[in-house]
C-alpha cells in the first residue's frame, strides 16, 4: 500500500501546516473573545510578520534573535494601531459594519504590502537550515521550531487566560462585555491587548511559515486560520489546536488519497478547507469541541 507508506510524510506535513493554522486561529479567537469581531485582516498580520522579518534579517542584516522579536513587535504595533484607529471607533457598531471595516483594513494592508515588498516572494531566513530523516518521512529542522514555538504559544496563551488578571479579564469580556465593564474591567483596553496579542501571534505564524513570504499570503492563511478556529469551536484555545491539526491533516491526506489511491488530480486541494468549513458550520456550528455557544435559528 503506497498510500499507507506515504502516511507518515503526509502526517508530518499536515502537522507542520496545522501548527501555522493554530497560531492564526488563536489570533482570530483572541480578538473574537474580547471584541466580538472576526478580524479579516488577521492573515495580513502574518504577511507583515514574514516580510518584516525578511527586511530586518535579510536586507538590514540583523541577527535572527534580534530580527524576530523586532518583527513581532512591529506587527504588534500595527495591530495596536488598527485597534485604536479602526476597531475602537467602531466599538458600538454592529457585526456587519465591523466585518466590512476589517475587510477594508485587509485590502489596505495587502496593497501597502505590495507597495513595500513588490516582488512575488521573499526568502525569509530559516532559524536552522537542514532537515531530519525520520522513518518514512523527512522533515525540515524548521519544523521543530514551528512545533516547539506553537506548543510554547498555546501554553502561554492558556496560562495567560487562566492565570493572569488581564487574561481573566479578557475572558470575562468574552462572556459578557457589558457585565465585565460593570465589574470594573476596562473593556476597551482589553480590546487593545487582544489585538496586540493576535497581531503578534499572526506575525509569528507568518515568519515561521518561512522560508517564503509574499504580500499575497494573507488571504490564503486567513481562510485556513479561520476554518481551523471554527472547526474547533470559535473562541476556544484548545478548539483552535484541534481545528488546526484536523485541517492540516485533512489537507494533506485527502489529496494524497485522491492521487495515490484513486489516481485523480488534486487541483481540488484548494477547496478542502472551504468544504470543511461549510460542513462544520452546517452540521456542528459550535465546532468539534464547542458546547453549543451558537444560538439555533
Amino acid at each position, binding site marked *: 500500500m503506497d498510500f499507507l507508506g506515504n502516511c507518515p510524510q503526509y502526517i508530518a506535513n499536515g502537522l507542520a501546516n496545522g501548527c501555522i493554522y493554530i497560531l492564526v486561529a488563536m489570533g482570530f479567537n483572541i480578538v473574537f473573545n474580547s471584541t466580538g469581531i472576526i478580524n479579516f485582516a488577521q492573515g495580513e498580520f502574518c504577511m507583515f510578520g514574514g516580510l518584516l522579518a525578511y527586511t530586518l534579517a535579510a536586507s538590514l542584516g540583523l541577527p535572527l534573535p534580534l530580527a524576530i522579536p523586532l518583527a513581532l513587535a512591529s506587527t504588534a504595533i500595527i495591530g495596536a494601531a488598527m485597534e485604536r484607529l479602526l476597531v475602537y471607533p467602531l466599538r458600538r457598531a454592529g457585526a456587519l459594519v465591523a466585518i466590512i471595516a476589517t475587510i477594508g483594513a485587509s485590502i489596505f494592508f495587502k496593497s501597502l504590502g505590495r507597495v513595500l515588498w513588490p516582488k512575488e*516572494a521573499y526568502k525569509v531566513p530559516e532559524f536552522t537550515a537542514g532537515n531530519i530523516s525520520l522513518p518514512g518521512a523527512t522533515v525540515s529542522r524548521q519544523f521543530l521550531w514551528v512545533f516547539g514555538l506553537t506548543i510554547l504559544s498555546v501554553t502561554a496563551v492558556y496560562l495567560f487566560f487562566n492565570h493572569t488578571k488581564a487574561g481573566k479579564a479578557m475572558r470575562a469580556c468574552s462572556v459578557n462585555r457589558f457585565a465585565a465593564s460593570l465589574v470594573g474591567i476596562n473593556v476597551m483596553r482589553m480590546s487593545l491587548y487582544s489585538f496586540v496579542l493576535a497581531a503578534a501571534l499572526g506575525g509569528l505564524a507568518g515568519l515561521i511559515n518561512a522560508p517564503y513570504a509574499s504580500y499575497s499570503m494573507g488571504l490564503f492563511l486567513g481562510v485556513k486560520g479561520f476554518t481551523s478556529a471554527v472547526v474547533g469551536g470559535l473562541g476556544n484555545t484548545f478548539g483552535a489546536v484541534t481545528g488546526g491539526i484536523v485541517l492540516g491533516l485533512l489537507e494533506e491526506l485527502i489529496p494524497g488519497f485522491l492521487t495515490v489511491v484513486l489516481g485523480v488530480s*488534486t487541483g481540488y486541494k484548494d477547496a478542502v478547507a472551504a468544504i470543511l468549513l461549510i460542513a462544520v458550520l452546517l452540521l456542528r456550528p459550535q465546532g468539534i469541541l464547542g458546547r453549543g455557544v451558537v444560538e439555533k435559528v
Partner: protein
Amino acid sequence: MSGKKIVVAVLLAGVLLASMLAQMGCGQKESGSKEPIKIGVVLSESGANEPLGKPERNAIKLFVKRLNEAGGIDGHEVEVIIKDDQSDANKAKQAMVELLEQDNPVAVIGSSGTGTTIAMKQEAEKAGIPQVCMAAGANIMDGDITWIFRTPPTATEAGRKALSYIAEVLKVKRVALLYDTNPFGSDGKAVVEREAPEYGLEVVVSEGYQTEESEEGMDTHLTNAMTANPEVVLVWGTNPGPAKIVKRMRDKGIKLPYVGSHGIANQAFIELAGEAANGVVFPAGKMLIYQKIMEPGSEEYEFIKDFADAYFEEYGENINTFAGHGWDAILIITEALKRAGVGATPEELRDAIESTKGLVGTAGVFNYSPTDHNGLTPDDLTMVEIVNGKWEPAKE
C-alpha cells in the same frame, strides 16, 4: 423639496465643471508639432502575472523613450498608453475597448497572460486592429488569426523543447508533472500531456499545486508524485512555487533531474531556491545566456547587448526574457510602421507586420507570414542549466 434642489444644483455644477475640464483637455491637445503615433498597451502589472507584466512594461517604456530621443518615426513621436489589467480577463477586455474608443491607437500590445490576451483578441478582431501579444498560451492562436501576432515562443514550443530534452538528453521515460493551478500552469499541463506521447514519454502523474502553499504542502505533492516512480520531475509554474518544490526535493534527498518551464527564467528563482537551484534545467529564449552562446559582433549579440546595457542603465536590473518580449513587441510594431509609413490603415500595418522577415529581436529572428503569426521556431529556444547560481547552456 429643497433636498432635491440641492441634488439638481450639484448635478448642474458637476456638468459645468466637467465641460470646463473638457475645454481644457481640448486646449492641451492642440499643441505639439506633429501628431504623435499612439500605441495602446495592456499588461498584467499586478495579480498572478505580475512577474511578467512589470519587466514588459519597463522594456516598452524604455524602447519608446529611446525611439523618441532619436527622432521618433518620420518626426512623429510615439506615445504609448499603458493600462494594467491586473491579470483579470474582464479588466483586459475593458482596457482594450477603452483604448479603442478613447485613444484610436494604430496598434495594441498585450497582454502578458493567456486569458487576458484572448479577451483582448476578440475586441481586436471586432475592431480590426493589429495586436501583438506577449503571452505564450498555445490556444491563443486557435480560430481567427487575422489580427493577432505573438513575440514569445509558445507554450507548445517550450513544452516540446523540455520534453525533447527529457527524451533525448536525459534519456528517461517516466515524467512526473507538477503544475500551478493558475492559467500559466494549466496551459503548460495541457501542452505536456498532449505532446508527451510524441516523444515516447509517459506522464505518470500530474499534480496541481497552489503557489501560495507552504513547503510542507509542496512536500505532499512531491510525495504523491514519487509514489508513481517517475524518472524526472517536470514543474510548470511561475515563482515562488517551483522554487519551493526544488528546495524541498533536494532537502528530501530526491536525486531525480528537475526540469522547469520558461516561467522560472528569472533571477528571482535562483534567489528563492538558493543552493537547490543548481542543476535545474529549463527552456528559455537564447537571450538569457547570449554572452555564452552567441558570437560577439554578430547582429543578434550586439542587439541584445545594446538592450541589456540600456535596460540596466535605466532600471538597475538585468534583463529577463519577459522584458525581451515587451521589447520585441514594440520593435515589431515600430519597424512595420516605418515600412508602412505613418498614417497607414490597420490593414496596411497588419500586412507590414506579416511581411516582417529576418528581424532580429531578443527572442530570436522573427519571420511572420499570413499563415504564421508566431514568428519564431523551436530553434529560437535553448535549454539552460543553473550551475553555481548562474545560467549556463545545458548540454544538448
